[in-house]
């Protein structure tokens, strides 16, 4: 098995940076899972697709807009009216291919095409609010839900995977530029880059 090479390159600098007077306010990490798959349903089939994804991953996934689910091995969240972004282990694609028939929808492997960046910590909402014009407050953006939004040219699909933890899926080619932006935005709060 050939290792995937991270696109962050030398921009990934483990350790503490920025204003550390109150300790690092956020931890930043690359958390790209082994498999990322976009599952898309035909009109009227999103619930069937949610059930199929749930069956293949063990997640309790709803078909509602912005809905998502977070599990030990897999996550999924809605990224569009008919679409989910599903993440999991190496066997995810095979499991999904078995679970999602052509009558329900299609699957597209994005395991190399998207990079997952994690922003966690007490100042995560503050840092992300600098970059995206969406409401990160817990009441407006509950745990497990997803959002599709953009920072200028960088499309980001974001899932809240914990009370103060967000996983951002960005295009691989833009990941390094976005990572640098993320680090810059985190300087005020102080940040720690963790492996």
């Amino acid at each position: 098995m050939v290792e995937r090479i991270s696109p962050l390159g030398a921009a990934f600098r483990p350790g503490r940076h920025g204003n550390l007077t109150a300790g690092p306010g956020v931890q930043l990490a690359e958390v790209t899972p082994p498999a990322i798959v976009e599952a898309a349903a035909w009109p009227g089939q999103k619930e069937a697709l949610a059930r199929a994804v749930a069956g293949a991953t063990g997640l309790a996934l709803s078909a509602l807009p912005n809905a998502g689910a977070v599990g030990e091995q897999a996550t999924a969240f809605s990224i569009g009216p008919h679409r989910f972004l599903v993440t999991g282990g190496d066997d995810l694609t095979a499991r999904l291919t078995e679970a999602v028939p052509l009558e329900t929808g299609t699957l597209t492997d994005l395991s190399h095409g998207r990079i997952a960046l994690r922003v966690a910590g007490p100042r995560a909402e503050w840092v992300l609010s600098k970059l995206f014009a969406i409401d990160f407050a817990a009441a407006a953006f509950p745990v497990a839900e997803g959002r599709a939004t953009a920072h200028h040219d960088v499309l980001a699909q974001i899932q809240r995977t914990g009370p103060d933890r967000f996983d951002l899926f960005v295009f691989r080619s833009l990941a390094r530029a976005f990572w640098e932006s993320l680090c810059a935005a985190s300087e005020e709060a102080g940040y720690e880059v963790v492996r």
Partner: protein
Amino acid sequence: MSPRRAASTGLVDRSQALRFTFDGRTYSGHPGDTLASALLANGITLVGRSFKYHRPRGIFTAGVDEPNALVTVLSGDGREPNIPATQIELYEGLEVESQNRFPSLEYDLGALGQLAGPLLSAGFYYKTFMGPVFGPLKGTRFWMICEHAIRRAAGLGRAGYEKDPARYEEMNAFCDVLVVGAGPAGLMAAEAAAKAGRRVILAEQEPKAGGSALWSGEMIGTRPAHQWAQAMAEKLAATENVRFLPRTTVWGYYDGNTLAALERVADRPSGTAKGLPRLRLWNIRAGKVVLATGSLERPVVFPGNDRPGVMLAGAAERYARQYGVLPGERIAVFTNNDGAYRAAAALRKAGAGVVAIVDVRPEISDAARALAQEAGVEPLLGHAVTGTAGKRLTRITIQRFDAATGRVSGDGRPVDVDCLAVSGGWSPTIHLASQAGGKPVWDEALHAFLPPSPMQPWVGAGAFAGAKTTVEALSTGRDAGLAAAGKKPSRARLPAVTAPALDPAPAPVLEIKAAGKAFVDLQNDVTAEDVRLAHREGFISVEHLKRYTTLGMATDQGKTSNLPGLAIMADARGLPIPEVGTTRFRPPFSPVSIGALAADRHRHFKPDRLTPMHDWHVGHGARMMEAGLWHRPMIYGQPGETVEQAYIREAAAVRRSVGICDVSTLGKIAVKGPDAAEFLDRVYTNTFSTLPIGKARYGLMLREDGIVLDDGTTWRLGAHDFLMTTTTANAGKVMQHLEYFLDAVWPHLKVHVTSVTDQWAGAAVAGPDARRVLEACVTGTGVDNVALPFMGIVHGRIAGAPVMICRLSFSGELAYEVYCGAGHGAHVWEALMDAGEPFAITPYGMEALGALRIEKGHVTGAEIDGRTTARDLYLDGMLSKKKPFIGSALMDRESLIDKNRLRLVGIVSLDGQPLGGGAHVVEKGSLDELGASIGHITAACYSPALERHIGLALVKGGKSRHGTRAFVSDPLRKRFGPVEIVSHHFYDPEGRRMHG
């Protein structure tokens, strides 16, 4: 006689000293001071020279409305001009200088311009320079010459040239209720909304909450008003659902209840924590807005009203009470309303001498009379100030005045003073409400415009909404907060307010007509006479008045001059003020630094888009170039090589042995679903439903109007699974095009499109030895002519990584595109380099790629320029006659099949000189004489295969000109020379090499 510190400290911390410099001299102030209060405390009243006449000017206000006291803040090599001294919080080491003076503030040569005063009336520049010029100056650049001198003489501060080292940031915020203004009304509103459980943002432009409570001298409950305000603000700041933003000016009210605010986070060099921005731009999306922006005092206009020492009465009161500074020792008050009497009493109490209260009104309220007594002076009713004297104010002249007729009478009586506190009443600060839409409403009693009825979900409170007392401010504030929270008004008791019972209505007198220059707009040096001149010359609409005289322009946006200007125009027209109207306020409410608007976007506007092999390219000497957001190798230069030498070497290697090029940037779109083939038949001009699995086909797309949109190959990976490739430049556009048709036109088609550009790394391996390179490294599949024929696709592995290989050629050579997961891109690239080593595999960049494709006559964005049709590019063979497709209905319109259209040809330079893209093709002419263009060159290069300079061109008549001579005409690059028009298929037109 000069201003000084009062005995009482106000809200300034005198236990600590802060040093600052003004025009190079060091002074001292205290925390809590503004630069303005500290200057006054040091006895400085002359702080600037005026815009047009260079008249000496002082501090006129104590807040955001300051028109006069603009200074330049220095920081290292940087300079930020035109900052009101009233808006600069004093800090240790602050360095400022005054503006618009030469050689010094005290002795300014520009002031000689005053002698030319009568010449510099409104419209002076238009009349003198912009109109038709007659006589000897006709046709000259007289204005251009004068402009330089005038711009130097007139004007404000100058900006620096150094890079601004400060950091700027942007922040997005959401709330249920945004309260603008933390005066008594705003504090009550925020508290009420917060208690109702709403998410609240409370924004206050000053460093401290309180608004008028900081200097009103009133009591709220049992405490001085400023203590009440501070306690309220502290309580709110500690409330979980409240975000209190001091030093934050809400400056724009936009659609969708989106408001823009500017927070001065660390507007000082010292003590700045790392990563802290200097300014933060807030984009606030509010459910409801409570506008509690208070009111601004306006002056009465009279001759000589601009001398240093003349200031607004409320400002004088504020300096005394909030800052513990006496703006003068012998102070006169000039007013049309009761409010200034409170100022007089406050100044007296702080230790100043109040030598006169001059009131235009014949009668005043008992409360005012009582305050006059506290001030220790008998008010001169029915009088007005009609003149002043002194570079710094030393004397005023008082005359009888009849408010009913506006006439001045009797002899002038001089009174020696060093400060004159003026009040013309108060106007609600309706700027944000006006920005939100609607027409302001005139209130006769207050002689002011009240906010319009809301066009967006906002609620008004306090003086903004016309509240006349602090009690009213508290109650309207609480009700506004409750209303914004969706609750009914409360009947609970409000804190009691101890305040004099002043009459809120001013006399409708805003100008005293007497001899001498009377300034309406201090910042732009617009006089009352200028307004009348504008009227006489027909500029009677307020919008014209503003543009003709510049009244109300520049950094203060006429906060002190709007209403007096309107009143003078209304008087000239013989109309009531509301019929003259008011200009619509536009953002920003107060100046916003450009840095804050641009924010520190860390190049976010244009993020670097990198391929998986980027670091390899950079590490191997590639000179990168930008193609849209992408960074792509232009050449892999060797020491001593020019760009041209490098690309010729690279292109020649492809023709001779083998080259490798990073094509990861090509747009790639997964097209999947039972109707995918049908969809592609509709999208492409040619047919894809007949494409076998495991094969690729070149396709052409048109726009709805019949013009070519893009081209590329699409690969059939399965019955319902296609991989479409697009040009790098059009990837986004094509994706949107497909999404539009699937969403808006044919939603019943079962097709999904997903961008997989980033999923795949791509390497083109091209040249006679390409197959040998693959044979040396590909496992799991054959790559011979049988296993992998032209346009065939195979799956295998390279160095353990799964790859997908399609045999297709852009260069005209035997070529393959090798795709693998992007995370394996660098790994596979290096394996290909290793496998190619025996064949001297040469990485090639965009320049060589361009030369190879020109030699082959392949079109790209230079030819697919949004104007060309398939026929223009001789691609009509790809237009299916068997089915409709996007663009088929309109592509045969008369003008699109005209025989004189520009069509694709090849061009060969006959004089051995290079050709340039964009040059015209002409039939005759010379370097100096432009011939009529018959077309233009779209791309050009030196062809290593043909050993000539060649190009592609779009030329009238196209093919019919093959074999004819013409000229390249490129006057910008001083190029004119003979060319031959030939077929665009320069090299191997039969395609033997790529099929080999």
